[in-house]
Structure formats: structure tokens, C-alpha cells
């Protein structure tokens, strides 16, 4: 999976490569042909057909300076969570379903919470610079609908990232 084929399929955002016609078809043999509607993700500028420009996700990460400055000893407790967060595809599905996200705004969305978690947890939790960015571009805007976590094809626990980042550390 690479996340390139994120789109809206029968009104539900998903990765086209892992949505199957058999699951969209009617359950009973006599249900007849199904109509499948494909649309581009609505939160990003359309390049052509179903292709959208998700460059804003990279832009926002650069703007917030999302990189590691310090690496602490790896923590066994954080391993599973870091492993899951490290799987992010930058597919943008979490932004598509978010009621608060608007491309180009101050709120960067769920993947951003996970990316800041990766930076902060690698530093053992004490990276005040990145925690400030998290508060500014995530915590201040999120109304916790958590639809982002449900839609994520990589099962990244965004709620846990938020909890980690919100904890008062150091």
C-alpha cells in the first residue's frame, strides 16, 4: 500500500486498491448491478480526474519544523505506538473525513498529531518546541470527532498520539 489511490468511493473515503466491488455489491443474488461513484478527495485541489495535490501536507510539516533534534534511548513502552505512527502513508484520508480540517488553514489534522508524536516520543517526551507546534496546529482546533482514527488505513492510533502530546511532560 502506498496511499496514492485515496479517493471517495460511494461517498466513503478509502484507498481504491483495497476496496472491493464484491463488498460494494448488493448482498443478495437478485440485487442487480450496483452503481459505484468515484470522486476525488474534496479537501485538496484536483489535478486531473481523481488525482489531487496533497502537497499542503508536506508544506505544513515543513512550516512546523517537524523533525527530530534529539534521540533518547528507545523506550520499549512506546515501541508499538511508534511503529504504527511510522506507517503513515500521507494519504490524506484523515483530513478528508475531519469536520474541522480545511486545506491551507492553521489546523493541520490527524496525521500531524502522529508526526509530532514521533518527534516528541523519540526525544523521550521532552521536546517543548514540537509540543508548542502541536498545540498551535492541532490541539487548539480538534473537536475529537475521531473519524480520522476510524478511516486510517494503517490503523494509526491518533487518539493515543493526542494523549501523549497533551500529557504534561518535563
Amino acid at each position, binding site marked *: 500500500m502506498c496511499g496514492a489511490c485515496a479517493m471517495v468511493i460511494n461517498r466513503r473515503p478509502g484507498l481504491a486498491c483495497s476496496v472491493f466491488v464484491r463488498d460494494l455489491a448488493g448482498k443478495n443474488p437478485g440485487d442487480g448491478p450496483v452503481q459505484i461513484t468515484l470522486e476525488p478527495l474534496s479537501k485538496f485541489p484536483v489535478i486531473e480526474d481523481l488525482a489531487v495535490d496533497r502537497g499542503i501536507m508536506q508544506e505544513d510539516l515543513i512550516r512546523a519544523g*517537524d523533525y527530530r533534534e534529539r534521540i533518547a534511548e528507545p523506550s520499549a513502552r512506546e515501541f508499538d505506538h511508534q511503529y504504527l505512527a511510522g*506507517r503513515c502513508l500521507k494519504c490524506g484520508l484523515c483530513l478528508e473525513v475531519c469536520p474541522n480540517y480545511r486545506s491551507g488553514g492553521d489546523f493541520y489534522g490527524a496525521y500531524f498529531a502522529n508526526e509530532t508524536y514521533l518527534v516528541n516520543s523519540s526525544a523521550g517526551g521532552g521536546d517543548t518546541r514540537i509540543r508548542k507546534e502541536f498545540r498551535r496546529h492541532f490541539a487548539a482546533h480538534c473537536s475529537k470527532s475521531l473519524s480520522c482514527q476510524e478511516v486510517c488505513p494503517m490503523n494509526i492510533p491518533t487518539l493515543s498520539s493526542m494523549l501523549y502530546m497533551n500529557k504534561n511532560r518535563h
Partner: protein
Amino acid sequence: MKTVLIIGSGIAGLTCAIRSAESGSRVILAAPYISERAQSVMAAGGINAALKHVDKDDSTALHIEDTWRGGAELEPMENVRALCENAPQMVHWLESLGVVFSRNSEGKIDQRAFGGQSRKRTCYAGTAAGRQIVSALVMEARKYECSARKGGGAGMIERRLRIWFHSALIRGGVCHGAIFYNEETQDLETITADEVVMATGGQNAVFGKTTGSQLCDGYGAAKLFQQGVILRNLEFIQYHPTTIVTAQKKMLISEAARGDGGRLFYLDGGCRVYFMEELYGERGNLMPRDIVSKCIYDCPSQVYLDISFLGEETIDRRLTEIRELCQDYLGLDVTREPIPVEPSVHFFMGGIAVDMKHRTNIEHLYAVGECASMYHGANRLGGNSLLAAVYSGSAAARAISGSESAAHPDFSADLAEARAELSGREGTPCPVPAVQIYEEMTGIMNSNLGITRTENKLKDGIERIRECRGLCSGRVLDESVTPYQRYALPSLLTLCEAVLTAALQRRETRGAQIREDYPETKPELALPTYAALEQGTIHTWITEKESKNEITC
């Protein structure tokens, strides 16, 4: 400040970019998509280094020995030595950047068994090593992207997205940059640089569906070949023994499944035949890939891989992605049922010929990662190509930091010529839709250059590829494919012919080159094959060095 243009942003390109920025260069990292879409994220099993965290008696000497023997004794020993001796340093560097490696009970990086290796040597991150490495490298590269935004200083990276390599700017045997097709402007543009590094990955798209990414089509190597760059070992194409095939994709079931105990079998009258164990004993399932693929190919019926007996807890902890993949694409629960598997094209040992500093035969032009041919000989061991991607990226960056830069000539006439060709205003239309020629090409490569090869099939393949090229060369292709695919196709066909020619010329069986008509391995041919294009004719020769004077087949 030296400008380094890196084409391709997978693990090799990213590593070279970070290392070059660290040493103070201005890096332009060019690729059509972000690094998270590069094939590198698909790497599952892990990366090799003799860290001795699990098997205390492992050593660099054993890593060298396994790599050289696994590669069917073809790769010059000094190349293998350079890779393996630097492996621990490469893995520690990745660890220092925050790569989330799986850990053993002592908190050290855990290591698993992998095919063709005498010790547990593969450092892993669940079954998503590539993704975890890319995630950390992207973050590290971002540090230098941020410094570029702040107006530079020592070392910076500027990313260029949505641009595709078109050709290199070469004058008098020196490279000065490259021409790209820009999707946004739908036009060609030049980027000049003091050093150019190709990091464009393997040649999957010439085979159609493979385990890898279609973004890797081999065009980089193909075009450079037409521009005078020497290629190497093209005939060695790895078939991975265990893949699942669906209507849309061929997907890898990582060797990690067998490393952790998975067993291959076929059914004979309802009885399971564990053929690899019968043929090669206890470690049979973990023989090198060339051997396992050929054995599966020879089986009388469908082959299955069983991991169900490992138990749900182990599978979920160590083989997470394999469970997800089989569930999503086959509706199969690997904790209860065996997985039907078959071999598929997976990796290219061949590519651009480079020296130990990853320089090509053109000055200031380098090649790193899977697009370069180095280290793996006639068959790559699992876990060695992520290592090669990181190591080659570092080696090229080190060489670049020392080399002198050249003044750039004017390339505006080259750009104008390329533009005229691309616009397709002049010339005769191709009588066949381009998409049909693509299909024909992938069909020929699969059927005539399969796991086993014969002179007849290879000659037939060359003839049919030439016919395809005859149809489209110098003609204007239709819009059934993208503008990039339109200009790439004739070059890809030339690459296909070079691959078939190299396979035809090597009259022996060695590693991934299995000749039905020449089943023996010939000690005098334990040398790389080189290929060059001169006045439209492909020449291949087998020799120790790139110089063509030694042995010609």
C-alpha cells in the same frame, strides 16, 4: 556551494541527499511523487548487518561469505567486502535517526533469519522495515528542507515534485544536469548541477505486474544507456519465491514468514510434500531465492506457504502486514489456512555500471540504490538491498563531497530539440496505440525471459521487441498513455533488447540466469556482463572491468 541533483527519493536518494546536505551541499531532490510513494516503503523483511545481537558467533566475514556465495560467486569480492564491512555502521546510523527497529529482550535491535544466510542477521521493524526507514529519513531530510526555507546556510535540500527524468545533460563525457518533464507546466525544463545522482530504482514496469512499484520502470537506466552510459548484469532478474497474485497486483509474502519458521509444501493425493525440506534438509525453506523459485517452478501442483502453526500471537506481533495483506486481498486468515504462493519478478541485480564510489563512466554522473548494479552478483540475498541503498547513497555522497565541479555549457539547443520531439507536431503517427505496445512489451519480457531461458526463446524475444521498436521509434505516439510514457517507450524497448541480449550471451546457468540449454555453471564466466550501445547496436561482453578489450562473448 556545490549543487547536487538527485533523481529519485527512495531510500538511496534520501540517504544521498541527507549525507550530501550534511557535508554542506545544496541538494535538489527530484521525483514525481513524495518519498512515501517510492518502492522503498514496500520493503518488508529488514536490513542485514552482522551486529551479533542474536547469533553471537556471526561476523562480517560470514556476511561477506553468504553474500558472495548467495550471489553465485559472480560479484568481485572487494565490492561485497565494502558493503558488508560498512553494514553495522549503516544500521547504527539509521538507529541514530530514530528508525523504529524491533528490539530483543535486552533492548537491542532484534535480528531474524533470512534466506541464504548462515546466521540470524536481518535487523527488522515488524514487517515494515522500508516504511519505518523512509519515515525516519524523510524527517531527517526535512531538517535540511527547513534550512533551505530559512535561506540556506550550510547544507540544504530542496524537493522538486511532479517532475520526471527525461534525459541527462551530457557534453564531452561530462554530466551537467538533466532535462525533466514537468507535469504542472506540461513542458520540459532543465536543472543544471555540479553532480548528478541517479536513484530511480529497478525496472519493474517492463515486466508489467511485479511485486514492486510501477513508478520504477527502468527508464532512467534505459535513457542513459542511449546516451552512452554502460550497464551491467542485466540478465540477472530475481524471482521472489513467495508472492500472491490477485487480479490487480502481485504482492510479496516476505521471506520473514519463512525466516520465522514458515514451511512450503504442495499436495500430492491429499498429502503435504514439504519439498524444500526433502531436498535441502532443515533449512530448506530458507535457501537463496534463485533456488527456492526454481524448485517451486518445478513443482507438479500449486505450492502453499504455511505459517498457521506459529500461532496468532506470534503472527500478529512479528508478521502483522502479512496477515493484513492476505485478509484484505485474498480473504484468507493465515492463522488458520496456508497461503497459495508463486514466484514473481521482484528485484533487478542489473542496472547502471558503477565503480566503488558509485561513479558511472560519465564524469559527475553517479548511480545508487537498485538502479545501479553492484554487490549482489547473480542473485541478491534478502535484506541486502536496503543495505545497498543506504550504503551506496552514503558512498556517493562521500565521493561527491571531494570531487571538483565543472562549468556548465549552454544546453538551450538540447532543450529546444527535446521540446520539438515531445510536442509531436512533426512526424508520422504510430499506427498502433501506445498502450498496446506497452502490453506487448511486458508480455514478451514475461514469456521469453522467465525463470528458465533458452536460446530460441531469447532470440524470438529480441526479434519481437525490435518489431515493437520499429513500430514506435521516431513516430508520434497517441494519448492512450501519459506524455512521460510516450517518450519513455522507445528507450524502454531498447533496454528490453539489451536485457534479452545479455541473457542470450551468457551461455551458462548461474544464480537467477537459468538456461535450460546450458544447465552447467562455467567457472570462467564468474564475471559481470557489461552492455553498451554504439551507433544503434547493442554490445555485451563479460569481463572483470568495464574495458571492452578483454573477453567478448
